[in-house]
């Protein structure tokens, strides 16, 4: 039973981190209709800066710079590439983002080399015990931080002028422009927010019990893609639920893999994608996605 609770809490915690990534993915899709395959590279860029800068300026300043830089890089991608591309279809832009991803990731991989970089976080490998349940401090901080950021985002999305502009532009860009909404600003801010969230996620993907940031970190981030897709690409609620589903599934499958040897080792890594496939077979638009409606 205690194992179950530990796995569940760890799963929710890592799921909340996936949700941060998936949320960024969804915001970008809603604001610009671009499926952003460069998301993993934004995450890696933010995490890399934190790991390199904390010995120089301290952890908190490094985190701040990492988040700001990832937001800036994302905004720059929007401004320099997405906005200028005069293409007929958004699928073309999705492929463009794959190119951007390759460029950024290749350079960062070259910088990182074979190192495993510590994040310099103040929580280290401390654990907290509740009764018989042992939890890493980092997992609790991750859960609380992710929950706070997601709540703040959703409140802003619902109540601020920025949120109203964003939703209006997502629903009908031309009409939003006719109402005076500046679409360029909306889409750039969407990219920046997504970049910042990805950098925070990078931190929590690389702290204990993970050894640190290395060149394969961006692959871990890929698990947030099924989270965004199974929730429905255009739904913020979907991103949250999707993140949690993936996190808990992965944690449970890894934790109990000894009882499921017939599935083979490493089922935890495959599970997110299996869950996504099953859900998409039942609900093609994802759990909360908008169904494509066509008038005949």
């Amino acid at each position, binding site marked *: 039973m205690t194992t179950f609770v530990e796995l569940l809490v760890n799963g929710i915690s890592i799921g909340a981190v996936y949700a941060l990534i998936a949320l960024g993915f969804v915001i970008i899709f809603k604001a610009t209709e671009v499926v952003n395959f460069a998301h993993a590279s934004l995450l890696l860029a933010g995490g890399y800066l934190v790991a390199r800068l904390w010995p120089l300026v301290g952890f908190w300043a490094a985190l701040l710079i990492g988040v700001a830089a990832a937001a800036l890089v994302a905004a720059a991608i929007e401004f320099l590439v997405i906005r200028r591309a005069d293409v007929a279809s958004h699928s073309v832009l999705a492929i463009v983002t794959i190119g951007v991803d390759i460029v950024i990731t290749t350079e960062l991989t070259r910088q990182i080399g074979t190192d495993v970089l510590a994040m310099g976080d103040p929580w280290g490998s401390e654990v907290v015990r509740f009764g018989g349940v042992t939890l890493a401090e980092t997992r609790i901080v991750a859960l609380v931080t992710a929950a706070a950021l997601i709540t703040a985002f959703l409140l802003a999305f619902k109540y601020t002028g920025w949120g109203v502009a964003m939703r209006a532009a997502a629903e009908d860009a031309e*009409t*939003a422009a006719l*109402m005076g909404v500046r679409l360029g600003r909306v889409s750039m801010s969407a990219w920046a927010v997504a970049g910042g969230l990805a950098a925070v996620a990078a931190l929590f993907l690389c702290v204990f019990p993970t050894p640190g940031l290395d060149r394969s970190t961006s692959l871990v981030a890929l698990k947030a893609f099924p989270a965004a897709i199974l929730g429905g690409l255009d739904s913020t609620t979907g991103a949250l639920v999707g993140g949690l589903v993936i996190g808990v599934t992965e944690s449970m499958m890894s934790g109990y893999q000894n009882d499921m040897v017939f599935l083979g080792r490493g089922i935890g890594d495959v599970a997110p994608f299996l869950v996504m496939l099953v859900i998409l077979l039942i609900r093609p638009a994802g759990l909360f996605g908008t169904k494509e409606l066509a008038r005949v």
Partner: protein
Amino acid sequence: MADLVVRDLVVGYGPVRALRGVSMRVPSGSIVAVLGANGAGKSTLLRAISGTLRFHRGACRGAVTLGDRRLTGLDAASVVARGVVQVPEGRRVFARMTVEENLRAGGLGRPRRDYAKAHDQVVELFPVLRDRARQRAGLLSGGEQQMLAIGRALMAGPTTLLLDEPTLGLAPLMAARIAETIKEINSLGTSVLLVEQNVAMALSLASHAYVLEVGEVALEGAAADLRAGDEVRRRYLGVADAVEGTLETRTLSRWS
């Protein structure tokens, strides 16, 4: 306050010419009607004024000016900031947002203190928008959606309002109500450029009217003159008794 002037406007969507040299003037404080059949270029004219041609891959030549300021070349948000606001055809309310949020979206470009005042004016004009503030806009009736679309545009504080077929698909009673409202908005000092297929309604509201035919101004004049003469009826409505016979033969020849 300034006149909205369109001069030699040519608009093309790729190889297709939608407007070929259209000129017109909306004097400050007036209601001007633009009439024309489907495909005459009415909506294209409004897109060119509002700066939304790029959403339809269109490009324009010629000039649109408000007073001594040029609107051509500006993006849609900047045109709104100059005080020229459009209510698009088919209402296009944000269906997934509440009525209140729709109004808010309309007033986003304004300072907060102007916002409350504009909001009071709009709900006074359309009390139903206050009653349904928390409902999703998609659940409103067609007429209510049209009121919301007009209210949303008014939130931006326009000096010139562009209306694209505001009575399309509405019950006659609701159409009359919308017509009343347009008159009321105009009486408060806002110029109106009204694009309509409902000729009788448009000519009763407007002081001046233009008839568009395949991208050109085929006819223009004081609304009263157009109403009195049968030129508009003959050219554009095609309901004069005398032409009934020819219409019939044309139909027959097309289908035979």
